[in-house]
């Protein structure tokens, strides 16, 4: 079960890191380009650690790369939010802000995990994630309370991505089981903090908080949007086309 949990965490980081990597060389300003890549590096690094640990626990001799590159979509455990396309900078920031907020509270809790490895991992990652949240929150304010155009673009992105934020704090079976054993995060516990932070930032950013309550879900159980297949087609191309070699 902890294996699956590590994949949930790792796949989120891997896929979001992948999406941010698509920005590299194309961001609105050089300084932003570098900041986004720093976050991509942090997330991809986290995924790597998590997959190494997952492979170790599984004990079947798989490597971090086997886990990243040789699973198909139905075995990926990331939330739907992180596989959503970059679209524009507003979408990217809203997606990042939702994820960072969740990730921040989740890792805060994970530092207290009964699993020593996970607690150590969370303590290290939390420092990175704290910075991510700071970056995305500030850009929420800049875009939301910037120009009329930026406000409108951010509102559109928020409206479009809203239905994907609930899954982050909606426990599946794996979450429930691991919360019970004190290894994983009790999502019910962080949910109020998560919602509160989102409300706080959205209102500071002068945005209308959507009232829709219907939330998409399924990613954590391997039911994905159409986007993931394309991500994997790109990401896994070389490993699939030339199996079993060193790179």
């Amino acid at each position, binding site marked *: 079960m902890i294996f699956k949990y590590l994949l949930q965490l790792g796949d989120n980081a891997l896929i979001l890191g992948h999406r941010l990597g698509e920005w590299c060389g194309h961001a609105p*300003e*050089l*300084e932003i380009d*570098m*900041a986004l890549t*720093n976050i991509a590096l942090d997330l991809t690094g986290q995924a790597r650690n998590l997959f190494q640990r997952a492979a170790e626990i599984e004990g079947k001799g798989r490597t971090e790369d086997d886990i990243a590159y040789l699973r198909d979509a139905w075995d990926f455990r990331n939330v739907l939010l992180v596989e959503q396309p970059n679209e524009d900078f507003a979408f990217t920031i809203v997606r990042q802000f939702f994820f960072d907020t969740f990730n921040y509270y989740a890792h805060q809790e994970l530092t207290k995990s009964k699993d020593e490895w996970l607690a150590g991992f969370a303590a290290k990652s939390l420092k990175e994630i704290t*910075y991510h949240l*700071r*970056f995305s929150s*500030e850009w929420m304010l*800049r875009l939301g309370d910037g120009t009329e155009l930026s406000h409108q673009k951010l509102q559109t992105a928020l409206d479009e991505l809203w239905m994907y934020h609930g899954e982050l704090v909606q426990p599946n079976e794996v979450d429930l089981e691991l919360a019970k054993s004190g290894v994983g995060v009790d999502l019910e516990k962080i949910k109020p903090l998560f919602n509160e932070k989102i409300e706080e930032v959205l209102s500071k950013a002068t945005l209308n908080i959507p009232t829709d309550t219907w939330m998409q879900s399924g990613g954590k159980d391997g039911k994905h949007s159409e986007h993931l297949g394309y991500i994997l087609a790109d990401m896994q191309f070389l490993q699939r086309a030339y199996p079993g070699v060193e790179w």
Partner: protein
Amino acid sequence: MKKDWPLWEVFIRSKSGLSHKHVGSLHATDEVMAIENARDVYTRRNEGVSIWVVESKYITASDPDDSDPFFEPAKDKVYRHPTFYDVPDEIKHM
């Protein structure tokens, strides 16, 4: 209509105990962004423990034309330096 992001100068303390040193510049809209951009641009290889930023327009520099009156007079004041004085080798801790 179009406004460029202002230029900032970045100073980094490379480890505790050392002074901040000028490392370069960058663009940012305000001090919050300037500090973060400095972090993202100039400390990627663990180069620092503290950052200062100042908007470039607030830096006043001495004029190269003043170099002679400014800096030449200090050159012949050798008595300010310890090596100017003869102290016998037997005398320690001085």
